[in-house]
């Protein structure tokens, strides 16, 4: 069980369940497929020497954001998307074309540059949290504080948006 094998399996699972998410027409099942996909991504993060991010990924994404999605889906009781004749054929054709073109461009640029850029520098002990925390609260302290203000703004904003209007 080399790290590479584990990484490839986890990444494959993430891709597989991402496909399930896009293809499945039931929104609740889509959310669940994405949970599995994000969980597999967390495994790849551990292998890329970022256990803190892996934990944050599971706690924030799988544990909070996607639960919120499920919560809203249940609250609104969103029905399954019905398969219907495409009412905007041009839109869909253009979308499909754009996706294929983008994938081709991405693959081409990966082949050209992907694996050759940048050179490795000093070793870092994998999985140690203290250096990350030190960096976060020294060099990036201002961004961290700005982020807390952003979260506060989001909190107030979502409260205002979702509040039921008082009956006149």
């Amino acid at each position: 069980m080399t790290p590479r094998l584990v990484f490839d399996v986890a990444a494959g699972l993430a891709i597989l369940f991402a496909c399930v998410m896009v293809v499945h027409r039931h929104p609740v099942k889509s959310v669940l497929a994405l949970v599995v996909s994000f969980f597999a991504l967390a495994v790849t993060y551990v292998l890329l020497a970022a256990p803190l991010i892996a934990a944050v990924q599971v706690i924030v994404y799988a544990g909070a954001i996607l639960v919120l999605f499920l919560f809203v889906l249940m609250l609104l009781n969103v029905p399954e998307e019905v398969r219907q004749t495409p009412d905007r054929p041009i839109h869909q054709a253009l979308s499909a074309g754009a996706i294929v073109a983008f994938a081709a461009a991405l693959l081409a640029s990966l082949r050209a540059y992907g694996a050759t850029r940048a050179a490795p520098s000093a070793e870092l002990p994998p999985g140690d949290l203290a250096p990350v925390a030190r960096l976060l609260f020294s060099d990036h302290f201002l961004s961290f504080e700005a982020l807390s203000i952003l979260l506060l703004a989001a909190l107030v904003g979502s409260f205002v948006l979702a509040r039921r209007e008082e009956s006149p």
Partner: protein
Amino acid sequence: MSASDVGMLALRVLAPVLVILIVLPMLQWVERRGAGLIQDRPGPNRVGPFGLLQPLADVVKFFMKEDLIPSHADRFLYVLAPGLATFAALTTFAVIPYGATLNIRGNPVPLVGADVSIGILYLFAVTSLSVYGIVLAGWSSNNKFSLIGGIRSSAQIISYELAMTTAAAGVILAAGSFRLTDVVAMQSGSWLSLPYRGWTVVPQLLGFVVFFVSAFAETNRLPFDLPEAEAELVAGYHTEYSAMKFAMFYMAEYINVVVASALMVTLYFGGWSFPGFHPTSLGGVVLSVLIFAVKTAFFVWIFMWVRWTLPRFRYDQLMRLGWKALLPLALLNLFWVAGLVLWNAL
């Protein structure tokens, strides 16, 4: 990694899980007899001496019952949900240290499933996944009582997780590490020295109270068992479940109680350590495991005691308590601990 290493690892991981699974039916007996004691009635006393074989009879009953799947349920998720609940509950135990370090032919073997650097974060990650079992059970049953139970549970668990994590952040701050073995090591020193190295509960009593109350909400136990409030929601999210699937939700609840108790012991009551006790020999290590078990059992009993003593909260009261009382208190505790750490008192 040799074969004996693999065997040792498997033993370290599986031993606590097996112990929990064996103790689980006993817990049910303790709860029912305890309920009898508190309510001044005998409780189950027909099967075996003191009703001791009652759990066994219940297990047989669960196996023999017909396993119903409602016709309008989403079959896949309906079957998946109880498994998910039990799985999330069982995997939490992997990072909790349950004994002192064992010495086998000069090799130190810490008695913990996996001593990872993100121990506490792992715990919160897995507990945050436990909500899926309940939410999916509620949704897939296609029953309004189940659905309301599932929605209540997701709101409740997200709300109380915040207070719980903030309270635990105080302990992390004091220990300077997410590693749970470090948290225990921090608490196994002297109670009189400065910096203080005794049980965390003394300097962080406020944090402990917040954590303790949140633990009840996270495990969906009375007085916070709104997701399955039988007076209004029949049985909440597991209304439609029967036989072994119901038993799995039942198991998940008890495992969560044990894990929450073990976590409280580890974070606030010194884990396996005891003042003036520094195990070196094999006997000492066994004693340390026993100390951990006794402390955990004490908190499990408190869970049951509270269940049969307090009435249920109303849902808006529950939310108000979580957001307006526990979260500010947890933040206050965090500031207090930060001050103590700053002035080298911790």
